[in-house]
């Protein structure tokens, strides 16, 4: 009996020792410093942003990462406003830019696009009528591209006849 008790005691001691080995804890401290850097790709107002016949209330956000505006069409008209807004790469390396937008489903709006231009060369076109509007392109270091807006509205559309062509859409910008 006594020997059995001794063995049990030793067993408990061994288990306690094993537990102590498993409970080894290693602790270290790292440091993350958080700061701010300017946006690498920014919007800028183009000459067309002040074309009040077709563009109203154009404004840039504080850090030029977004813009707002009201773009007016004409019933039965197909208007293109050149250089409404611009995209600038402020970095010393090229950036991959992706523009993504919400779909415009109003049938009275028959065309609504943004065409990115390098002077006279077309870089690409974002189509708001597409199911998932998206446009990806590369902008070289220090380069500025312009964006032309096209809005085509069906004939007979208006704000007072139940065939309004009013739409609200967003345009997202990401850079990497």
């Amino acid at each position, binding site marked *: 009996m006594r020997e059995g008790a001794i063995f049990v005691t030793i067993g408990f001691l061994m288990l306690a020792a094993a537990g102590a080995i498993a*409970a*080894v*804890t*290693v*602790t*270290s*401290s*790292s*440091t*993350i*410093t*958080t*700061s*701010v*850097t*300017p*946006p*690498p790709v920014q919007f800028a107002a183009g000459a067309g942003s002040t074309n009040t016949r077709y563009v109203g209330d154009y404004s840039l*956000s*504080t*850090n030029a*990462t*977004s813009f707002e505006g009201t773009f007016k069409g004409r019933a039965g008209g197909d208007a293109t406003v050149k250089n409404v807004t611009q995209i600038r790469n402020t*970095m010393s390396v090229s950036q991959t830019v992706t523009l993504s937008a919400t779909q415009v489903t109003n049938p009275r709006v028959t065309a609504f696009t943004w065409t990115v231009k390098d002077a006279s060369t077309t870089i690409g076109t974002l189509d708001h009528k597409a199911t998932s509007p998206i446009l990806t392109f590369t902008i070289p270091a220090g380069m500025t591209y312009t964006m032309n807006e096209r809005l085509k509205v069906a004939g007979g559309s208006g704000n007072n006849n139940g065939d309004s062509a009013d739409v609200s859409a967003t345009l997202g910008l990401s850079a990497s």
Partner: protein
Amino acid sequence: MKAPGSQSRLRKLASTRPLLAIGLVVVVGVAAAAITLTYTTTTTVTTSVTPPPVQFVAGSDSGPSALTNYVTAYAISTNKTSMTATVKGVPESTLVIGSYLQLQNVDAGAAHSVTLTTPQVSNAYVTAYTLGIYTSGNVLQDTLDLRAASPTVTFSLPASTTYYGKLTLTLATGAGADNVALTNAVTLTTV
């Protein structure tokens, strides 16, 4: 135990030969005090160092060989127990660093419980600040939310396995170097 009657014989001896009785008591006392055994042994304890089971590895998108305008001064300590880095967010934007850091369990024999803790980030211009912990297969294990009241995350890292951390930082309009300058100590505890 004294034999029965030993005390009475000692009293009798003391009455007849007192000096002899005192001598016997002294001898017995000395004998009792002498039952003291002192061991002096030498045990050798050798102290050395073993690597911590969970170590930092540079993230593929932000390590020293991949520094960008968004991550600067990235460094990992000699024994890979800690890292330092500066993350630069962009106002009005969400910065995502796909592989900001990696945590590697170099212990081939056992999984280890890993806990990351850091003080809360309460800066109003920082609207989101997280470190997602992912497996190499891109499965999210848990997320350290630096804006939480007590940011902490605990997960088990299997033997010989590496997880990576995806950092997401969103800054609000008006954020600038003058109002977003944070330093966070991130504690890594491995059991």
